């Protein structure tokens, strides 16, 4: 049977829930991004803090997580945390896998968020911290009110890069038995080898549609939020 190109796509979308799979990746990304931002911020504060043991802990975390393949972290979350240690994040089977994958994605990308934020901290002149201390703010209030707000603005572009990496890396959640795009793609290749090009194009274009606006948005945001000095 000789379908037209458009018909091939239509039949794929009819047969499989492509949009649903993308939606899973978007959700994985969204939850992991928020969690990674929180963990990454805490790590960054630890790494710039005056307490040596906190700095050491932060550095160790970043070094360990940044240099471990994501697949291993995700597999560890599922097989290690759940399979071995019996840690469940939900009584529902699917939700449990989803949350474990979010956790894995978050702890991994938190290391990169931390480094992006530290590059943002480096855009803040020392004088800002000294002025904050001079008006009687302690380390934590100075970090929260003066340093971090400026660091975030200086880190929008690198944080955007982390987000883009996270979107694409969310496909690794398949290794944690989460039904998402890369898993679906494998299934489609298996059962519809006749339209393999359409399958590839579907996912490639899908990711381009998601990632390109994120890149554009963070670039314009970083310009708009830049602190004038």
């Amino acid at each position: 049977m000789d379908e037209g190109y458009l018909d091939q796509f239509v039949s794929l979308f009819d047969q499989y829930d492509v949009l649903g799979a993308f939606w899973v990746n978007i959700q994985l990304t969204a939850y992991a991004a928020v969690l990674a931002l929180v963990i990454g911020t805490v790590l960054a504060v630890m790494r710039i803090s005056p307490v040596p043991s906190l700095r050491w802990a932060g550095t160790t975390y970043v070094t360990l997580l940044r240099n471990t393949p994501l697949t291993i972290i995700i597999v560890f979350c599922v097989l290690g945390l759940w399979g071995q240690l019996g840690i469940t994040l939900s009584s529902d089977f699917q939700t449990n896998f989803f949350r474990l994958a979010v956790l894995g994605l978050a702890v991994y990308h938190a290391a990169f968020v931390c480094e992006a934020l530290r590059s943002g901290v480096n855009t803040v002149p020392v004088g800002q911290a000294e002025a904050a201390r001079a008006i009687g703010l302690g380390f934590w209030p100075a970090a929260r009110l003066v340093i971090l707000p400026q660091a975030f603005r200086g880190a929008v572009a690198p944080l955007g890069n982390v987000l883009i990496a996270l979107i694409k890396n969310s496909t690794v959640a398949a290794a944690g038995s989460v039904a998402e795009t890369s898993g679906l793609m494998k299934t489609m290749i298996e059962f519809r080898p006749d339209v393999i090009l359409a399958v590839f194009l579907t996912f490639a274009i899908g990711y381009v549609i998601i990632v390109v606006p994120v890149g554009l948005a963070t670039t314009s945001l970083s310009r708009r939020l830049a602190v004038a000095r």
Partner: protein
Amino acid sequence: MADSITAEPGPADVDTRPTGEPLLVLDHVDKHFGALHVLKDVNLTVHRGEVVVVIGPSGSGKSTLCRTINRLETIDSGTITIDGRPLPAEGRELARLRADVGMVFQSFNLFAHKTVLENVTLGQVKAKGVKPATAKATAMELLERVGVANQAQKRPAQLSGGQQQRVAIARALAMKPKAMLFDEPTSALDPEMINEVLDVMVSLARDGMTMVVVTHEMGFARRAAHRVVFMDAGQIVEEAEPETFFTAPRSDRAKDFLSKILTH
């Protein structure tokens, strides 16, 4: 001896005389940066209401002296006392004592992401727990006083250097400090803006603020200072009334230094 304060403060221009009660006391203060001995057995007493100008060649330790007084730099030995209380090493107590001593930097260091008004309210609200409305009223009053009230909603980068420095003075005053430190407050300014900042400082001095001012502006020293402290190579070499110091310096190092800055 450098620590025997003999100069009788009180130039004609300043109405409020120091009461003579010691407010900032540096006693045998030593500091190194690695192998570099930046402060050598520094003894300095600044009395309430007194205006002290610190002068000296580049690298003589003037900034370091200022910065040790509110502990932006640690000291190796000796003691620094603010209004009878020794400066603690760390923590909440230190933060509180820091707010007692206002600091004005050469590079202004206004919080770049905040408006002018927020710059002046931030410390009041977050370090002193003043109610936002009260803090705002105080801030507007101070901005009025330094002549930049009409810029309250702008960001620092939108202001001229002179305006920024006046905001920085207002920010420091908002903490109701017992003393103010100025580290070359006009050296980053274009010449036409220097006076607007110096005028604010002179009026502060007349209101009886205790001030330590690192500056080479002899005009300011003559108009407002009670005492000039001359530093060289980490030591206080000479102290005198401004007029005496500028016209009849005693030490050779001061003579040499003055001859250099006066020929320019």
